[in-house]
């Protein structure tokens, strides 16, 4: 701590170089923040999935339905606590580009299955009382400026015609990452107005098990129960389902890792070079410090601390910039929830610190091993 003034004084020595190096870290950590937010947007379902929930879909594919009669059979299975179902609607609001997920849900069971979505009893009761009622997530309502009581026309792409709904409630997420861009309406309304082929069919089921440790065993029991039927099932824990859903969009994780690795490796080279130049320029001064009795470890620490200080300053700037810009991203790419958790911000700064330390290590070691007599001769 006694040497902080020396550290800061050294940073001010070459202001442009220090600023550019801090800038490199800031840009890299800004990119890191964006990548984390993008990763979160694609994989939020995986991270937020309930450990006690299973998803049951048609074995052929997600777009193939399952009979509504499966609900009662699922409920009879040992270890199953609750069952709900939903259908994909796939409509558009006003314009093709206004895409958001719309689900026809079982009004009696859906809310209880997903307690992470907060909704008032008053709002939910109004929804239950109105066959044409709907519920929208807070992000979705904000995106289109909807308020409770609004009449919302949705043009069906799978189910023909324009469907009009009454917005009865707006739900929020209990966690910052919860997806509140969804639109729910009643399955009985879909069955009533929809074509003949949709009647008696559910898109998929969500099952809550009493003991999450038995989830895999129950999933097998579900599939076994419907084996060799006309509607065979594929049952997975919600987390695995969300992961395979995300993977359909490409290996985002690999892409993010690759970009991140290249950026940080480049940063390592840039910072390492900067610190090497800084040490080389200061050979004489480091020799003087050693002459005055500064131990090797102090010299090593001084150089490493300088590198770390640059890295942390840049890192903090970068992640804060990413945090500031992520709400703007959500507006530019509706349907995705771009959220940067505080833990990832801290991890980012930690990563910057690690890069700073690694980059400073070789120059610091060379400073530590400096022979005073040789170095003074060069002054």
């Amino acid at each position, binding site marked *: 701590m006694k040497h902080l003034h020396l550290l800061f004084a050294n940073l*001010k020595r070459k202001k442009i170089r220090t600023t550019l190096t801090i800038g490199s870290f800031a840009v890299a950590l800004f990119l890191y923040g964006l990548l984390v937010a993008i990763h979160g947007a694609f994989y939020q379902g995986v991270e937020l999935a309930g450990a006690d929930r299973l998803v049951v879909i048609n074995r052929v594919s997600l777009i193939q339905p399952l009979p509504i009669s499966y609900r009662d059979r699922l409920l009879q299975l040992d270890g199953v606590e609750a069952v709900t179902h939903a259908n994909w609607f796939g409509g558009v609001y006003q314009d093709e580009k206004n895409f958001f997920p719309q689900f026809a849900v079982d009004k009696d069971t859906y809310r209880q299955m997903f307690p992470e979505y907060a909704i008032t009893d008053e709002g939910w009761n109004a929804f239950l009382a109105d066959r044409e009622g709907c519920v929208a997530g807070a992000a979705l309502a904000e995106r289109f400026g909807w308020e409770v009581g609004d009449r919302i026309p949705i043009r069906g792409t799978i189910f023909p015609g324009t469907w009009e709904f009454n917005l009865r409630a707006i739900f929020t997420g209990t966690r910052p990452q919860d997806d509140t861009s969804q639109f729910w309406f009643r399955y009985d309304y879909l069955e009533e107005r929809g074509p003949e082929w949709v009647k008696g069919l559910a898109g998929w089921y969500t099952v809550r098990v009493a003991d999450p440790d038995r989830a895999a065993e129950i999933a097998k029991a579900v599939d076994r129960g419907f084996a060799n039927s006309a509607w065979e099932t594929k049952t997975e824990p919600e987390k695995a389902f969300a992961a395979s859903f995300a993977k359909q969009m490409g290996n985002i994780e690999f892409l993010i890792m690759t970009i991140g690795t290249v950026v940080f490796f480049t940063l390592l080279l840039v910072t390492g070079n900067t610190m090497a130049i800084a040490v080389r320029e200061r050979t004489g001064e480091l020799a*003087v410090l*050693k002459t005055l*009795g*500064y131990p090797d470890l102090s010299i090593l620490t001084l150089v490493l601390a300088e590198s770390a200080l640059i890295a942390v300053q840049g890192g903090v700037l970068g992640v804060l910039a990413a945090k500031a810009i992520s709400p703007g991203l959500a507006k530019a790419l509706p349907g995705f929830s771009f959220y940067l958790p505080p833990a990832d911000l801290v991890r980012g700064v930690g990563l910057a610190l690690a890069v700073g330390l690694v980059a400073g290590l070789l120059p610091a070691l060379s400073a530590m091993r400096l022979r005073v007599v040789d170095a003074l001769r060069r002054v």
Partner: protein
Amino acid sequence: MVRVDGNGNGTSLIRVRNLDKKYQRGSEEIHVLQGLNLDVEQGDFVAFMGPSGSGKTTLLNLLGGLDVPTSGSITVAGDEVTAMSAKKLTGWRARHVGFIFQMYNLIPVLTAFGNVELPLLLTRLSKAQRRKHVETVLDLVGLADRMHHYPRQLSGGQEQRVAIARAIVTDPTFLLADEPTGDLDRRSADEIMELIGRLVHEHGKTVLMVTHDPRAADRAHAVLHLDKGVLVESAGEAPRR
């Protein structure tokens, strides 16, 4: 009294015996110091003179624990410096040696105060104690009103005075000065030598100085010439003033 015959009595502050230093330059072996003996007592002011390459700076580096001899021993205040490990030498240097360089070697990004405070950062002194020490020595070298100036804002003579303040701020056992006036004009050089003289005569400091300047050497109690790796005393030893 300074002696170079190896027969000094046991009261010497610095005792050098049979000091040898050889360098390897390519295939050539250079014998810089050859069986050198020296006894310096507390409060002595010794000037080393000699042609370039005669080994003056090498001797100073060895006395300051910056380099290790090929053979022989150096004992300072009863501690055998040549037997110390590199780590122990570093600590010893901080406590016992004050260095004054020809090119001042101040840290350009620190003020005069910051430069003088540097050796004290290795001690357990509080911030207030450090401040008091620094202010005292800067006052002693006549730079109390320049303590917040950076080296670039000081003249060469002032920079050297800051360097002297840095060398004495920990009250070391002895001072090593490597051509302290070598980069200064005559007037500044005289001022610096006046200051070093005051440190010796008024504050009882022991100073060993390398110089090419006969006027600077004149102020020393003893002028020793290094010739072919051996120390030779000048004809007359100057009186202690």
